[in-house]
């Protein structure tokens, strides 16, 4: 697999980010609504959401594609980050809620007259942002520490993360933890004094999501090139050899797991002001599996793959839920089956295969080295682990 990035690829990254970060918002802001170049607020908002999904997908890939840890709980961290930001946004509603009370509506509904103590500091934006990183990070640290210390790996790790997510989801459905219960948080009004319902604020959030995705992409790209990145891939390919070579594999895995969780949580924090609602169904076990689908469809083991996968699947979803609402889950499931069985390296793998084929045809007489086997990666996820 190629690890260096060619000038051409850098150029592509630059071009795509330039379009996403500069051109698209400008088209939204400065073109008349009826012009064919105009990008509507709705579309912009949608793509802001896709970028947040893309960020989650990258973190899933960092864990799965690069470290061999298939986490089925990445959306838990995403939703936790979203909840932390949601608490701040709920405080910013002030007394504009249904009950015109200085505390959030659902608390009034539950019979509270004063703000519960743990809600108080969330009026402070820096505190809320700190919590976005700290709380999911802490949870990931504790869970990861326990899991990696006792060498839970492979399928067991996946199932445990799923159990953790399920437990958290059940917990957040309850009213008595004072996090909005079933309905979660919604009806947000202001963020840092800006009106969330205005097009300008939404544009700002879109740009922030795009920039955040770019930073995460570049950061992870750098990370995978360092020694840590090499150990990470070594753990994926043969954890025992890493252990025998004297590396504390658990610590590396823990670092990656916590990092991925914090990044996913931040994506959640950017996501919630854009969609305007957060409820426990966002942390259900199926959401995390869906994030894994994005990575598998895009192509795991590459950093572009997850972004492409997340955007591709979600564009398809937006279209087909409108066009064929009854058949969308069948589409998704079917696509997934096909990808897993026939395209183990996803869309990126398919593209690389196409490029290789093209090169081969151009230099037909010369014998070419065989393209990297798609099986090489997947075999590394150890089949023996399930025994």
């Amino acid at each position, binding site marked *: 697999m190629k690890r260096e990035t060619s000038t051409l690829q850098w150029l592509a990254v630059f071009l795509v980010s330039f379009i996403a970060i500069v051109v698209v918002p400008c088209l939204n802001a400065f073109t008349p609504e009826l012009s064919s170049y105009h990008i509507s607020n709705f579309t912009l908002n949608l793509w802001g959401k896709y970028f947040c999904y893309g960020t989650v997908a990258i973190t899933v890939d960092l864990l799965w594609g690069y470290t061999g840890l298939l986490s089925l709980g990445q959306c838990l961290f995403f939703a936790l980050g979203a909840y932390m930001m949601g608490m701040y946004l709920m405080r910013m509603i002030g007394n504009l809620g249904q009950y015109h009370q200085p505390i959030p509506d659902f608390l009034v509904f539950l019979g509270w007259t004063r703000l519960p103590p743990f809600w108080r500091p969330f009026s402070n934006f820096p505190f809320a942002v700190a919590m976005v990183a700290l709380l999911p990070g802490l949870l990931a640290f504790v869970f990861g520490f326990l899991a990696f210390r006792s060498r839970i790996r492979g399928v067991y790790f996946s199932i445990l993360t799923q159990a953790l997510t399920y437990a958290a989801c059940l917990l957040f459905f309850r009213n008595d933890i004072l996090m909005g219960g079933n309905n979660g948080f919604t009806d947000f009004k202001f963020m840092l004094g800006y009106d969330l319902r205005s097009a300008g604020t939404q544009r700002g959030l879109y740009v922030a999501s795009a920039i955040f995705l770019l930073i995460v992409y570049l950061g992870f790209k750098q990370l995978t090139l360092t020694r840590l990145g090499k150990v990470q891939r070594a753990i994926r390919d043969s954890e025992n050899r890493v252990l025998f070579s004297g590396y504390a594999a658990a610590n590396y895995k823990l670092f990656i797991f916590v990092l991925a969780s914090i990044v996913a949580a931040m994506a959640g924090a950017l996501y919630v002001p854009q969609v305007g609602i957060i409820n426990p169904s966002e942390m259900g076990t199926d959401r995390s599996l869906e994030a894994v689908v994005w990575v598998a469809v895009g192509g795991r083991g590459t950093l572009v793959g997850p972004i492409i996968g997340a955007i591709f699947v979600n564009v398809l979803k937006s279209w087909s839920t409108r066009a064929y609402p009854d058949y969308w889950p069948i589409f998704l499931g079917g696509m997934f089956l096909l990808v897993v*069985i026939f395209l183990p390296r996803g869309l990126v793998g398919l593209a690389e295969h196409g490029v290789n084929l093209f090169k081969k045809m151009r230099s037909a007489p010369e014998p070419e080295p065989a393209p990297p086997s798609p099986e090489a990666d997947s075999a590394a996820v150890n089949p023996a682990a399930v025994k």
Partner: protein
Amino acid sequence: MTKSVLRRGPGRVRKGIFSLIFLPLLLLAGLPAFADQQPESPATRQALAKAITAEGDQQIKDVTALADTHSDLVRKVLNAWPLDELYIIDAPDGSKIPCMLDDAQDADGKQKAIRIDTGAFLNDASGKPQSFFANDLTSVDTDMRLRRAIQDTLDLMALSDPNPEARKNAVMKLGMLQKLSYVPILEARLAKETNGNVRAAIGEAVATIELKDPDSAVQIAAIQKLGELGSMGSRDVMQSIIESAKTNPAEMKAAKKSLALIDAHIARVNFFGTIFRGLSLGSILLVVAIGLAITFGLMGVINMAHGELIAVGAYTCYVVENVFSSGLWLSPFGFSMHLPGLNLGGWMYQSYFVFAIIASFITAALVGIVLEVFVIRFLYRRPLESLLATWGVSLILQQLFHLVFGAANVQVNSPAWLSGNFTIDDVTLGYNRIFVIGFAAVIVLCTWLLLTKTPLGLLIRAVMQNRNMAACMGVRTERVNMLTFAFGSGLAGLAGAFLSQIGNVGPSLGQNYIVDCFMTVVVGGVGNLFGTVYSALGIGTVDEILQQVFGSPVVGKITVLVCIILFLQWRPSGLFATKGRGLEG
């Protein structure tokens, strides 16, 4: 026991005579079948009409007197009264006629009026039945006192209900009212009551009432008796006796002793109840997880579609049930389709569940075969990807259920022999809970026999231990894989058939169980069938105990999940790890 119930203080003779007067009436009431066949006597109707039109204290007296009639009509009218479904219609001559409306409505929504005093329709001047809008009529007023009198009368009448359960409830209700005047009535009932449960309830109710007796000796005897009976219902009363300032020391001593006895009894009942519910919950877990113990545990396929295979079984049961009764309309993909029903009744219908169990196993096994041949076959070497592929399958299946059977949950009627329960010493044992324990035992036994005592079982174990080696020895591993997967899927179908009996069936039925299934198998130790048995029963019992402790199923469940995560710290490969020498094993 009967003796102690009848033990009375000296002041009871007058009441004894009183009960003698009641006895013939109650004897009459003891023959409800006979009473039912009689047309309502005009006297009853007149008494009823009089009670309805009377005023104030007289009305309450009249209503109370109605208890002696034991007529179904009285019961019906008294039930309708507080609901404002009893009307007074002013006749042309100025008299007031109490009426109820007929059930049948005509085209305008009007209903005919039935006169209470004669039972005939209320006619207009020309002699035709008159119809009314319910809203236009004045209903007979009730106040708090009257409603209470009506309720008391109904309770008294329920003492002679043909259904023992209703009699028992009525007895318990009367006991709770603690009116001394009920003691003779209850004792009279005891004299001819044949049902053991009702007799016990009467004894308890009499003792509860006697707590209010002015005679201290009677009271103490009653307190002691309630303590001996371990009467859970009288715990609050006992508490209030202890807290009351008027209690004398002897009573206090007896009450404290009885309260301790009652508490011990409650603790015992809770303990056995929890153990029993825990066992049955564990059996449910076992039934749903044992299929996964084969497909995931033995074969290593992370089968996220396991939940949907369970749902296949449940829907099969639904279809079979409908075919045995009146048929079923389905509209898959916009087509309309009718499955004709056999319209069976009686035991023929009741036995549908036996066929449904077999059909569920076969259907789910067939789905499993399709799944294995088209998907799983390619993924034996890539376990993590089998997780993703089977999740795709689960999405497709869920949506198919949605399209074929509709988004709403459907209800499967349980056969009579699975609904209901019986009580041993206050511990309620539901038939379906007992059934699932036996069902789980049979399934485990059959699975064990299949795996260890048949040639196929030998092949299965060989292939699961080492596919390549088995293939080298000439085993047709592809077929063995397929059959094993089909067997695991069939077991999931069996679980579905049972789950359809304890709840509604919906497209996401399986999703509620999938995490639990994986937890059960992982805790038990992957690849070890008996590990799954132990872990299912253990998780079920712990879950039930934690639900008791926290008083909430959800908190209990969350705690169980956290406990499991911590447990796996201690034993990362489950209760019974499969031992191997391989480093990666």
